C-alpha cells in the first residue's frame, strides 16, 4: 500500500466511515473466526471472539497509526483476547520434551536412526486435514497459535513476531516444536504406508 493510500485509509478510519469499516469487517471477520477455531475455540465462541476483536478495533481506532497492516493489528488484538480468555500467558517452559524426541531421531553424527514415515497415502484427501485437526488439539497453546498463524493464515514470520510480540528466534522455535509434535502425532496415529 502506498503512503498516500495508507494515509487515506487512516483518515477514513478516524472519521469512522461506515463503508470503510464495513469493508474491514467483511474482509477480516472470517480470518479472525478461522484463527480462533484453529486455536481451539468452539464455533459460537470463535464467532464471539471475532466480533469482540472487531468491536475493540473500532473502539480504539485512534490508536491505529498505520505502522502495521490492519490485518496484523487485528490479529494482535485477537492474540490478547485469546490469552485473556485462557489466562495462561504468564508461564511458558523454556524446555520442551519434543526437542528430545526430535534429537532422538538422529545418531551422534546427525544421521537418521528413526527415519520419517511416508504420509503419502493421505495427500489429496480430507483425511489429512481431519487428522491434523485431531493432532493440533494436543499442541501447547503458544505452539498452536504460531502453527495456525503460519500454516492456516499463511502470515509471514515478521508479521507473526509483531502480533505475538516475540523475537524471530522464539517464533522459529515454537513453529519447529509445533511441526515436530504434529509429525510425531501423525506417525504414531498409524498413518503409515500400507504394507
Amino acid at each position, binding site marked *: 500500500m502506498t503512503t498516500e493510500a495508507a494515509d487515506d485509509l487512516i483518515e477514513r478510519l478516524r472519521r469512522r466511515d461506515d463503508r470503510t469499516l464495513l469493508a474491514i469487517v467483511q474482509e477480516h471477520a472470517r480470518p479472525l473466526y478461522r484463527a480462533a477455531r484453529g486455536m481451539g475455540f468452539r464455533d459460537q465462541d470463535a464467532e464471539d471472539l471475532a466480533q469482540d476483536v472487531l468491536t475493540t478495533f473500532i473502539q480504539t481506532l485512534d490508536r491505529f497509526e498505520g505502522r502495521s497492516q490492519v490485518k496484523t493489528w487485528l490479529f494482535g488484538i485477537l492474540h490478547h483476547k485469546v490469552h485473556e480468555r485462557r489466562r495462561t500467558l504468564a508461564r511458558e517452559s523454556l524446555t520442551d520434551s519434543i526437542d528430545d524426541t526430535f534429537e532422538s531421531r538422529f545418531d551422534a553424527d546427525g544421521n537418521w536412526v528413526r527415519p520419517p514415515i511416508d504420509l503419502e497415502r493421505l495427500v489429496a484427501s480430507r483425511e489429512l*486435514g481431519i487428522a491434523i485437526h485431531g493432532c493440533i488439539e494436543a499442541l501447547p497453546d503458544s505452539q498452536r497459535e504460531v502453527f495456525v498463524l503460519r500454516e492456516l493464515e499463511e502470515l509471514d514470520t515478521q508479521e507473526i513476531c509483531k502480533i505475538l510480540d516475540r523475537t524471530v528466534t522464539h517464533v522459529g522455535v515454537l513453529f519447529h516444536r509445533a511441526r515436530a509434535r504434529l509429525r510425531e502425532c501423525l506417525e504414531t496415529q498409524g498413518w503409515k504406508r500400507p504394507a
Partner: protein
Amino acid sequence: MEETGMMRCKEVATLLDTEQVADESFRKRFAVRLHLMMCKHCRRFARQLRHLHVGAQSMRSAIDSEAAAADLDQKISRRLGLTDPGTRE
C-alpha cells in the same frame, strides 16, 4: 540411515523445519538440494512438512465452509451496526 558425505540429515531437517533454507548462502542451499537428491529419508521429511501445510489448508477450507454456512461476515456486520449503504432502505 543415509550417508551422503556432505551435510548431515539432522542439519538438513533442522534447516527445512525452521524455514531457514532461503536465508542461507547459495553454497549451503545447493548443499541442501544435493543432500535431498541423495537422501530418501530427508526427502520424506520434506514431504511430511508439505503434508502438514496441505492438511492445514484442508482444515482452513473446512472452517471457511462453516463460516459461510453461518453467514458470519453479514451477521457480524449487522451486529456492529454496519450495513452496506447500497442495501439500505
